């Protein structure tokens, strides 16, 4: 299929349709409006598919909850303040072991913050986000092509592990246009998950619920969730490395920050500095084994995030005290240029006596 020029938000919409998304429920918020508008235009005219603009983010996530209960592939999207509102629903989806895809085109915070790109929702996304002991799979794309690919993967992972999957993008990824190729056609027949609530004909009736009055029973439910999370960690952790083989300093960055870091690394490589990149693609599960592997050969790490240091904690936990970690963060929706980041890298490189 030929490449088409698309903004990130629309690319997610097209990929979701091709993944067999049957229901999309959304609510306006910048910078993800192109996605809700894409679904209004393109999903709504597909046979058997439904687009509804909800009255609030809470309504949208609960519509997704309902659609997931009956076995449909369902998605919602928002940006940081709206994702906070969806957390109740995400917790319930996790408790019920139901798949759903939730897109967060995040923006600066806290509060209403700004509408510029930021990465300050890392903690919220990777620690569950709502109340209770649960995790969601978190995918962090860094290009429009990857937004499309990871959207399809998100639906597959959600169904495979019966878990909500978060796509954590940002204002830049959502708005920027890049060539993108869609590798699969939309299914002729919409997928319906087996064992969903579709009437009790020929089987005992079921109830979907999250309340358990017996703590021992709830403990077992939590154990079972975490056994599955262990399996996800083992099987689905993904990351990318870039110019890492001879590196003396490794930058760890995700999403759009990793894209900036790549430019910075090319700059400092031209000056002869041996710097590489480790880019987690799944933020949860975090690629801690990859970090442990890198520290065998590299002592110096620079974590670069567009926040005040959130993934930094996961890097430090993975290192278990080994190596030296520095941090460069830009909060509030400020996007540093590759040359700013390369100055930070080269200063650190010389300070640490690596050249």
């Amino acid at each position: 299929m030929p490449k088409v020029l698309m903004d990130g938000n629309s690319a997610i919409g097209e990929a979701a349709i091709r993944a067999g998304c049957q229901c999309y429920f959304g609510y306006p918020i910048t910078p993800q409006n192109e996605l809700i508008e894409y679904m209004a235009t393109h999903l709504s005219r597909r046979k058997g598919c439904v687009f509804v603009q909800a009255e609030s983010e809470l309504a949208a996530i609960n519509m997704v909850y309902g659609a997931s209960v009956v076995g449909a592939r369902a998605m919602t999207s928002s940006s940081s303040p709206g994702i906070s509102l969806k957390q109740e629903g995400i917790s319930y989806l996790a408790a019920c072991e139901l798949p759903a895809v939730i897109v967060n085109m995040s923006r600066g915070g806290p509060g209403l913050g700004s509408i510029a790109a930021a990465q300050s929702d890392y903690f919220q996304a990777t620690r569950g986000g709502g109340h209770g002991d649960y995790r969601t799979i978190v995918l962090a794309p860094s290009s429009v092509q990857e937004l499309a690919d990871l959207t399809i993967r998100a639906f597959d992972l959600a169904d495979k592990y019966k878990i909500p999957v978060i796509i954590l993008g940002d204002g830049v990824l959502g708005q920027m246009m890049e060539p993108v190729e869609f590798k699969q056609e939309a299914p002729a027949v919409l997928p319906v998950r087996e064992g969903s609530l579709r009437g009790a004909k020929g089987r005992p009736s079921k109830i979907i619920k999250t309340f358990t009055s017996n703590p021992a029973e709830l403990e077992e439910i939590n154990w079972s969730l975490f056994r599955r999370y262990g399996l996800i960690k083992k099987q689905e952790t993904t990351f990318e490395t870039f110019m890492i083989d001879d590196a003396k300093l490794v930058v760890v960055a995700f999403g759009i920050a990793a894209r900036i870091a790549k430019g910075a690394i090319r700059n400092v490589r031209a000056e002869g500095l041996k710097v590489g990149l480790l880019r987690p693609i799944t933020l949860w599960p975090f690629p801690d084994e990859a970090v442990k592997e890198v520290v065998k050969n590299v002592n110096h790490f620079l974590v670069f995030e567009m926040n005040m240091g959130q993934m930094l904690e996961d890097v430090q936990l993975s290192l278990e005290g080994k190596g030296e970690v520095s941090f460069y963060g830009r909060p509030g929706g400020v996007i540093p240029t590759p040359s700013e980041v390369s100055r930070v890298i080269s200063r650190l490189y010389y300070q640490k006596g690596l050249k």
Partner: protein
Amino acid sequence: MNNPPENDQLSIAKYLRQDRLPHIWCAACGIGPALNCFLRAIDKSGLNPDKMSVVSGIGCSGRVAGYVKLDSFHTTHGRAIPFATGLRLANPELKAVVFSGDGDLVAIGGNHLIHAARRNIDMTVICINNFNYGMTGGQVGPTAPYDVRTSTTPYGNFESAFNLPLLLFASGASYIARWTVVHLHQLENTIVEALLKPGFSFVEVISPCPAVYGRMNKEPDGLDSLKNYVKRSIIKNGADPRETEITQNGPIVVGKFVDIIRPTLQENLAKVAAKAKKPSTK
């Protein structure tokens, strides 16, 4: 920027944070005229502006809180009314005015709106109704008539609209009125009445959004919308709220629909407090 003369009795300049101008509203947007009426109404009402607070939610209309030179709060999307409720109850001396849009007040904030009307809390709500989410690019609003085009209803709106006067009447508001932004004098006088009315007063302002809603509905110039309002408006004070529904091309019934006396939340709170203070007879 030229400041208007300060001795001008009618000048609303004193109520504007002029350092924050120019405002963000598009040419021919209806929020400016509505704000103008509100500021003139403050003068006319005789209320002390230093004992007034303006609360807005999110959206184009939500910007009002940022432009008025009164103690003002720009709150979470949809939650201006609960915020104003807390403010009003914690500081009974402050008059609370909520100035926001249809998406903010009626969609995400719809639950808060009806509960504030039910409580009949002493508060004035000015609702700019332009049928869409202008700031985010013209998505369908909860008041958008059936079949209109918006960026999320490209093939026509498939849902029905809220008839706000009927909703507010059913919820228990003490005062309900609706004008368009061509009815500037009526709107100003209505806001004066609403500000002075004890209990929950609600003023709906039908307003053009030429940049997005208008462009998608054959009114790309704000003036088109105003001419349309002149043509379609029917002034009918005391109209039955069941007959005030707005359709795509039908009449727009405007006027003061409800003006009743009901105990306010504050009065009832005082009553129950007095009752609770009496020693038990048991």
